[in-house]
């Protein structure tokens, strides 16, 4: 059996007090001081923990919010003095897209490296915006492969990055001009932080994470030389990003990297040639912002014998610069389908980024047509970031990210990636898919809200009204 992709993990507890969803409001004034106080009966022993917590309190602004929300104490208090409430700090986490639930589950995964498991059925919305408007399929009885819980060791999440010509050129009986291809063990690369969240210097931590997980991180070329010991060992896990006006890096550096990215500009071909002339084996992506012209631009340049296109929406997965933005999922589908119609899709690798917040987004992005995805903010959230938009130099970060240790940072990010990988395997196992490469654009392995509504409810109820 081939070597299995395995990420070493260990629990990395949070540095800051947990921001739980629930808190108990306690009207102590009328307390009868019962001997059988419900607080002693908490199944999770939270009241005792709270007492110990307050005893050793470091920050006065950090209250204890780790209640599990079972209502047992609320309903049993002799004097009915307890109320369960939603922690306002929890509600303030993130934004409409990066919901408190996403932030909290990311924290949990970064701490434990485990797949979040809970009881009771799904309690959320029927469907929703963006990736929430599709479901992944599963395979019942008649399965395309013999995967399943005992076949997971055979599921490969590896993908290739590079140009894949439809046929080989043969010279003297040997294949010639084979373009370089990189294989990474899961369909994810770590992208640069969006502008508003790039205050913290996390390069060292992110690079080490990419190294430990055998993945690749994108790093602005202006950051070379790196202030890291043994910087050269990390070069295969760094893809330097060259802005249009960026200076070329020294040739020995380029020769040791396997992947690079260039900004889309009138001179991007020239920049690719420069990189290739130094290192013919390097794979080069063109980064295209998904603004009003992004989709067309991606389709147009795909014909230019490119190796990789990296399309990037904003942090919420939205198109930029338009009044009615499309979501990244739909833009991926458009680009993927158009390239299929142009017979160029199989030649090129598409990396999609922006709005990839959960492991299912990674899988769904690939089903929609990307080969792999890029993530940024989840890495920051792994460090207990709340996406509070206060990332301004000189202002106190509520998550104290500038104070993190190297081991803490790499541990949390590595844990998160490991949890994402395991969840991807869960979804692929359910689908009966053995290879992430086969998942690309396989919309037959997904069900889309609009499609199901039209096919099933359309027959029963007519035409769906426009919102």
């Amino acid at each position, binding site marked *: 059996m081939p070597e299995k992709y395995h990420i070493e993990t260990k629990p990395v507890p949070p540095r800051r007090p947990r921001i739980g969803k629930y808190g108990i409001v306690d009207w102590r004034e009328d307390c009868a001081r019962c001997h059988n106080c419900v607080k002693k009966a908490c199944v999770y022993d939270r009241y005792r923990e709270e007492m110990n917590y307050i005893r050793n309190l470091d920050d006065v602004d950090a209250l204890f919010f780790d209640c599990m929300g079972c209502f047992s104490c609320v*309903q049993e208090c002799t004097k009915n003095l307890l109320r369960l409430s939603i922690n306002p700090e929890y509600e303030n986490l993130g934004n409409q897209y990066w919901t408190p639930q996403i932030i909290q589950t990311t924290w949990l995964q970064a701490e434990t490296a485990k797949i979040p498991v809970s009881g009771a059925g799904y*309690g959320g919305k029927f469907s929703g915006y963006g990736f929430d408007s599709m479901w992944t399929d599963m395979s019942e009885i008649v399965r395309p492969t013999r995967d399943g819980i005992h076949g997971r060791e055979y599921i490969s999440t590896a993908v290739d990055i590079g140009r894949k010509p439809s046929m080989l050129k043969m010279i003297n009986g040997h294949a010639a001009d084979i373009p370089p291809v990189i294989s990474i063990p899961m369909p994810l690369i770590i992208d640069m932080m969006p502008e508003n969240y790039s205050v913290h210097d996390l390069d060292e931590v992110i690079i080490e994470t990419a190294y430990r997980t055998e993945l690749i991180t994108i790093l602005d070329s202006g950051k070379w030389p790196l202030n890291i010991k043994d910087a050269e060992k990390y070069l295969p896990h760094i893809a330097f990003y060259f802005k249009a006006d960026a200076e070329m890096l020294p040739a020995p550096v380029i020769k040791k990297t396997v992947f690079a990215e260039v900004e889309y500009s009138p001179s991007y071909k020239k920049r690719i040639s420069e990189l290739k002339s130094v290192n013919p084996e390097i794979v080069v992506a063109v980064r295209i912002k998904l603004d009003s012209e992004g989709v067309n631009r991606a389709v147009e340049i795909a014909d230019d014998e490119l190796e990789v296109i990296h399309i990037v929406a904003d942090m919420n997965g939205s198109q930029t610069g338009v009044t009615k933005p499309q979501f990244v999922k739909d833009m991926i589908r458009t680009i993927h389908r158009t390239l299929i119609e142009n017979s160029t899709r199989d030649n090129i690798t598409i990396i999609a980024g922006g709005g990839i917040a959960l492991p299912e987004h990674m899988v769904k992005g690939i089903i929609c047509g990307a080969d792999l995805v890029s993530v940024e903010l989840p890495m920051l959230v792994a460090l207990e970031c709340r996406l509070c938009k206060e990332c301004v130099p000189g202002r106190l970060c509520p998550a104290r990210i500038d104070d993190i240790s190297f081991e803490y940072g790499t541990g949390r990010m590595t844990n998160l990636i490991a949890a994402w990988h395991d969840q991807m395997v869960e979804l692929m196992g359910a689908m009966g898919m053995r290879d992430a490469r086969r998942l690309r654009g396989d919309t037959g392995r997904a069900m889309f809200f609009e499609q199901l509504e039209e096919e099933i409810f359309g027959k029963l109820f007519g035409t769906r009204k426009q919102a």
Partner: protein
Amino acid sequence: MENYSEQENRLESIIPVKTLMTRTEQYRQEREIKPAPPRYRNEMGKYIISRNTEKCTRCGKCAEICPQGVHVLKSGYRYFLEPKSHLCFGTKCIDKGCFCVTACPNGALMIEENPMMKVLGDNRWPAEMILATWKMAETGDVPDKDYALEYETGNSGGGFDRIRFRFPDKPPAGLKEEDIDTSLLLNRRDDGRPKIKIDVPWYGGGMSFGSVSNTTQLSKARAAVAWNTFTCTGEGGYMERMRPYDDHVITQVATGLFGVREETIQRVPIVEFKYAQGAKPGLGGHLLGDKNTPAVAMMRETVVGIPLFSPFPFHSVYSIEDHMKHIDWIKHINRRALISTKVSTPNDVDMVAVGSYSAGTHIIHLDGGYGGTGAAPEIAKKNIAMPIEYAVPKVHGFLVAEGAREHVTLIASGGVRNPYDVAKAIALGADGVVVGTMEMVSLGCVRCNRCSSGRGCPRSIATTDRKLAPKIDLEWGAQRIINTYNAWRNELRRILLRLGLRSVAELRGRSDLLMHLDYTNDVEYRP
């Protein structure tokens, strides 16, 4: 048609002698509706009434005008009891002229909306639906309209929550509620096996010992006896304590085969093959190590404390032909058993259903993606497989087109939360439904999602912890579920009455009686 009990005298001819010798006397549970008050001291309601004891002169005016008994001054006591807020109609009392807050001559009473209504429940089971189900479990009927508890729909924004019935302006004259037939025939094949008929168009879903307590399982079983319907063992084995309920038990054969023996298969009238579960389709079962207590481990013949997985899929079934071999195996072992095939809802669920019918199943049980569970990866609960609202019409339509619809019973589950959902699922094409979460809520579940954690459920329902589990009394638990069943049956009859239908069977596939709030609803109905 004959009920199972009518065949009892013929059991000797179809049950092997050894199994018959171990058969125990069957438990009798009366279908009696009795009050089953909540077991927590401070029952929650939509409103909170508070009394300022310094202002209160104990004049008794509030107790006098409140028809609900919110205010109680026990004889011999100096002070009023804590107001029973959960009984309060709130501001509805203003219209009814019994608003205690304004009636109090000293302004000692205050009313507010209970802020915990925002905390309790979730989008699929909002607080009001949970409170309404608690009322049903307590009283045996749906809550009084004056409580203004919205239980007909949730806040999920799609599926059942956007579908409504098109009720005629006036119900047809001459039709009486008590004459409406809610029974459901489970065997539609003429294959010589019993024509089992249950009195309500639902039965209890599979919950293993381990995922829920012994008391919870037995409460479900007693309710099944009272209502001449079924409960299901789930995959955790067949408890000896379930033996007195054999005639109302479906035993599950799932991929882990925990506790499955020929003898357990021979005990029951229905055997269910569980291929997948809606909450975690394609992933198999998972009992966390903490819940694998000595009792559970003994039942499942495993080691205490280790997590238990049921693999996915059946490693002996990769085609409909393999599935047929499974069914034949069970039919051979138990000559009276009906076969139910429980599958989740993939894109090709219609093909699976027809295949399963061809293989000889009597019941096709579709468990939708938003179904219940004791523990499942969150990524699976939200993302894998389609909701039941899509699967039912898809499968129903395909079975009709294939000419198989009248020969198989189609059961839906996974998000059936109230009697309206039952009726909607049937109107979309199901024959009946399987319920699970409603039974848990009847026992006091608050949907805190902690069934999977540590000692299990802090509400003592989904736990095998020796301290927690005994907190539920079996008599009480059974009565709560019996009461909720009654409330659902009553409300289902009222729905059918308003629609002018004489039976649940007449409702099946009548999507013309439904409308969707997001659609033009101008499709011509083709039965």
